[in-house]
């Protein structure tokens, strides 16, 4: 179902060795994954050190340098108000990272407990929760996020909340499926027989088993969140100008395609590369943690 959201959902697989070790090893073995990790790290550094790294003030208009092509002074050129595009991109990284981490945290914090309860308890609770996630999945993520932004008011934080909320059902489904898969394993039943309370069973015996799959899902959802934040800001319901976001930079660039095509190249490339890197990392992790998907080569 997750594909409807535009969020990719991971397959279900049980860990064979220490997942953290496997993950690190699998990433280190793949040059393309190292490259992806470098891209993500660069974005993190850009966001963290934006004030120091940006050569110009991202909001400072320069009427003597309107829509200048890339040059030595302005490496990526300037926009319609003469603002330095490179500086705006460095600052725009903040919006993307904020979107990816905060929205995934929201989806994780809400979705995982609900999914675990749903899978572990079963019965009417499970049925009701599943129909509710069906309903949420029936509303396409972006349309849901846009309409949430309409009612909450357009701002980056509201856009991030909307993205997080629309990613919740994927986490519910994943943790439910995983809880169902392991709940009848002998070690879980043994732990129950010796008198562990239910909450302890779920936290100590079921949750650790599904962490690898959740990490993969979180990584793939970050790719979705980066693109979704850019989409919402592009539509005007995310980051509000003059603050920079790669999405709202593209929205302005769209009006000057004839005169200043470079305005449209860099921010789009940044969204694409960041999304691609998160997706690549997620895929590599999935291959490492789920031997079946590796065998399938999917």
């Amino acid at each position, binding site marked *: 179902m997750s*594909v409807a959201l535009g969020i990719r959902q991971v397959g279900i697989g049980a860990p064979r060795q220490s997942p953290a070790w496997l993950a690190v090893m699998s990433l280190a073995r793949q040059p393309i994954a190292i490259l992806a990790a470098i891209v993500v790290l660069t974005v993190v550094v850009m966001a963290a050190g934006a004030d120091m790294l940006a050569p110009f003030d991202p909001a400072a208009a320069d009427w003597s340098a309107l829509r200048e092509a890339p040059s030595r002074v302005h490496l990526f050129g300037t926009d319609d108000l003469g603002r330095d595009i490179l500086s705006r991109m460095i600052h725009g990284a903040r919006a993307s990272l904020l979107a990816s981490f905060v929205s995934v945290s929201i989806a994780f914090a809400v979705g995982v407990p609900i999914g675990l309860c749903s899978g572990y308890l079963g019965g009417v609770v499970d049925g009701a929760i599943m129909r509710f996630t069906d309903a949420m999945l*029936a*509303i*396409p993520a972006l349309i849901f996020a846009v*309409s949430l932004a309409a009612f909450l008011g357009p701002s980056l934080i509201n856009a991030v909340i909307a993205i997080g909320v629309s990613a919740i059902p994927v986490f519910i489904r994943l943790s439910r499926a995983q809880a169902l898969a392991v709940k009848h394993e002998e070690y879980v039943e043994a732990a129950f027989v010796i008198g562990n309370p239910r909450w302890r069973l779920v936290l100590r015996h079921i949750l650790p088993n599904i962490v690898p799959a959740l990490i993969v899902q979180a990584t793939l959802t970050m790719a979705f969140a980066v693109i979704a934040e850019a989409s919402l800001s592009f539509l005007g319901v995310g980051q509000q100008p003059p603050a920079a976001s790669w999405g709202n930079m*593209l929205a302005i660039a*769209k009006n000057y395609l004839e005169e200043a095509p470079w305005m449209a190249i860099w921010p*789009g490339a940044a969204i694409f590369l960041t999304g691609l890197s998160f997706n690549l990392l997620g895929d590599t992790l999935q291959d490492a943690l789920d031997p079946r998907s590796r065998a399938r080569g999917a």
Partner: protein
Amino acid sequence: MLRFLLQRLALMVPTIFFVSVIVFSLQQLLPGDPALTIAGDEASPAVVAEIRAKYHLDDPLPLRYGKWIAGLAHGDLGFSLRTQQPVTQLLAQKVPVTVELATLAMAVALTFGVLMGVVAAIWRGSAVDYIARSIALFGISMPSFWLGILSILLFSVKWRVLPASGSVSLIEDPIENLRSMIMPATVLGLVVSGVIMRHTRSAMIQVLSNDYVRTARAKGLAERTVIFVHALRNAALPIITLGALEFGQLLSGTVLTETVFSIPGFGKLVVDAVFNRDYAVVQGAVLCTAVVFLLLNLFADLAYAFVNPRLRTQ
């Protein structure tokens, strides 16, 4: 078959109920007094009171929900705050363009995605497979609005072969209509084709490892027949379901694509309504999208059951 149909319909009832609750709850998110928000800051108290009465804002929540649902049952989605037109009428005006865009995009996505998936599965592990998978990953990571902007840069600004925006009525000028639809539909379709390629590939790989495929090969059938008649027909089952699921993604995509290419469709209606704070239109649009999505998935399930007799008898 009838039992299967009834079962699926019964499952849809609670889902649609929850959809309606979600859509209804949206307006509860409005900060402050909704009547004031709708009326605007400069409205007189009389106008605010009138709005409060018109939208039953003083009624208790469950009663308001009941009235709203009763309206829905009569096909009444409320009125646009801006144009005073019924929301159903607005939707009916805008939907055809979007249906055309989505259908064309789906055709592009299926053609490209299934073709790439089949090719990748046949030559699994080869350079062709690697390239096809890379293209799929690029498609999945590509923001559709950026691809749209890039194609405008190339085809409209640089080469000037295709129009950058606007839409012409399909009935008045079919050729020009198609010309203006090629770029948006291809952009949207390519972005969705990545997911379809991945699923086609894994479905084909699974089917190709079955015994009956080996038998078909062993009895000397041409490889073409084995792949297209025996394998693809079985791999097509999950693709049908996926196609319906991807429709949601496609609808999300139309919001962006229509904005990039200035196509006056459903997506543009939603975005405009969001900026005009035209809440009834937003709610109506979300509700319609969800119901269409659920119906399409129901049809996909039925098609699946129709093609796969094992499901019918269960």
